[in-house]
């Protein structure tokens, strides 16, 4: 394994009475993609903001390429690129002007940032729109420009906070491709996401974050494997029907059913066999599901497995245990 590009140890951050990060620790090997996976308000953005020197931690430490994010903050800024959760670009400037401004402020030489700007505009499909003010751009175009801005200085470490939020499928695939290219060139990438699928496609390793704590640090594939590759979910007419269905399904071989209010869920690696088999079981028991879903496991399923509760948004966390997490 190559050296660690990022080492986070016992990192703690409090906002008033809320502990946003609670002794978080992880290490990111150089030249890999690391994912921070969790629902809204779990602490992902706080971690990114500390690593990018925007926020000072209350405890613990974090280093980027061996540089302490508090003591050596100025030096850290020479090593990083950041694309935050919202497209941080100037509406009134053109796409080209935005990138050149960032290049200039990143202390690049004129010839260098000019060439780099044109290259990135082409790479992100913005060459034609380069001379138009950003205010005329679509949401996806702004997002791409924002990510391009993070790349102007060719930073060895790149932070992307929910980079694909608001992107259409095409732009998202394009961005994934860019990230893979960067990693092939040796860049270390830290990204946050709410989607297990994205983490699985893109990251070498993920830390699952729940209310400021790391509850798992593994490969996305291993997380998925521990869940089974597919979730089969039956929506029953009411809770009694669901309870009876759970009992019936528990009586047969295969994955253990999990019931939650009027839903019964089976997770497995062989969805078609489970589907045929369990539908047969339900038919025999004269339990007819209202709806059947077959889907890949979501962040919510990971949370259920790891914590026994749903992936809750922080806002709903205190009073919404019944709420079905958006995943």
């Amino acid at each position, binding site marked *: 394994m*190559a*050296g*660690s*590009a*990022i*080492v986070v*140890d016992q990192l703690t951050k409090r906002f008033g009475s809320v502990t946003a990060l609670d002794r978080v*620790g992880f*290490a990111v090997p*150089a030249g890999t993609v690391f994912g921070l996976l969790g629902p809204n308000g779990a602490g992902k953005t706080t971690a990114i903001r500390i690593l*990018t*020197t*925007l926020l000072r931690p209350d405890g613990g430490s974090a*280093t980027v*390429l*061996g*540089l302490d994010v508090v003591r050596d903050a*100025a*030096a850290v*800024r*020479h*090593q*990083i690129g*950041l694309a*935050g*959760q*919202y*497209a*941080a*670009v*100037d*509406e*009134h*400037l053109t796409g080209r*002007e935005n990138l050149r*401004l*960032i290049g*200039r*402020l*990143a*202390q690049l*030489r004129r010839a260098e940032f000019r060439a780099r700007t044109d290259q990135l505009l082409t790479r992100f499909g913005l060459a034609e729109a380069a001379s138009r*003010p950003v205010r005329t751009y679509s949401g996806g175009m702004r997002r791409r420009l924002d990510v391009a*801005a993070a790349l102007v*200085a*060719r*930073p*060895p470490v790149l932070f992307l906070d929910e980079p694909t939020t608001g992107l259409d499928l095409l732009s998202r695939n394009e961005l994934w491709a860019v990230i893979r290219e960067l990693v092939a060139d040796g860049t270390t990438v830290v990204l946050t996401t709410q989607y297990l699928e994205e983490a699985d496609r893109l990251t070498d390793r993920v830390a699952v974050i729940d209310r400021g704590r790391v509850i798992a640090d593994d490969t996305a594939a291993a997380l998925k494997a521990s869940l089974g590759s597919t979730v089969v979910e039956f929506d029953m007419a009411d809770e009694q029907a669901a309870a009876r269905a759970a009992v019936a399904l528990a009586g047969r071989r295969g994955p253990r059913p999990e019931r939650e209010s009027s839903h019964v869920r089976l997770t497995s690696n062989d969805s078609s066999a489970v589907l045929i088999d369990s539908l047969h079981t339900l038919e025999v028991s004269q339990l007819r599901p209202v709806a059947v879903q077959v889907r890949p496991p979501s962040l919510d399923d990971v949370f259920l497995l790891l914590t026994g509760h749903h992936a809750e948004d922080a806002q709903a966390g205190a009073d919404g245990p019944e709420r079905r997490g958006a995943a």
Partner: protein
Amino acid sequence: MTAVPLPLQRPARRLFGPVRDVLAVAGRNLNVIRRTPRLLVFSTIQPLVFLVLFRYVFAGVAEKTLPPGIPYVDYLMPGIFVQVTVFGAMNTAIGLAADLQTGLLERFRSLPMSRVAVLAGRTLADLARNVFVVALMTGVGFAVGFRIHNGAGPFLGGLVLVLMFGLAMSWVYAVVGLAVGDPETAQAAGFPILAPLVFASSAFIPVTTMPGWLQAFAAHQPVSYSASAVRALVLGGPAATYIWDSLAWYAAIIIVFAPLGAWLYRRAA
């Protein structure tokens, strides 16, 4: 867990780096002003309306309080110059608050650039904007009868003085903008600071016409000192005391508000 040292990106240590940063940010802000001519037009219409209204509405009453031989328009214009630069400085609050809201400030803060460049570049751009507005007001002032009594040199010196005041006030508004964090609130929060300074002053009406308790404030605040200094430069008469008092005020304002602004910038959310 120890980090294995990796080859770091070696930044070129550049001469005048911070100056370049300030100019880059100022250039960007001027570009934005240029791209939004509507904003510039409407924000210059307001002081023009003030000038023309005050010139004709107050002239009859105000001239009774002035020494004979001084037309009200010549008394008024120095006050108008101070007023427009102080109003113009409010753009600093609005612009910074907008950058804070869009996340652009956060991006700047993650870049290896000077920590004061964003504020200094903003105040510099607003200074340039004020130069434009003051030039425009000078032209309109002459058109409505304003005449300088003391030669072009002192007059231009007076304009430089009010522009310096505008620059100092920009730092006050930088603090306001960063503290409130959204442009609408910045505008609303800016006005209560600005209105008493501009109107409870000698900018439009001699302080001696005001009640005693108000005179105490009105006579000793920077708008009055600045207006009196420019007035002395335009109309003739001893100006040195007013100029030094004004400069002392500007220095004091910057000494207090520039570090406060820089501190807010470093911890901006």
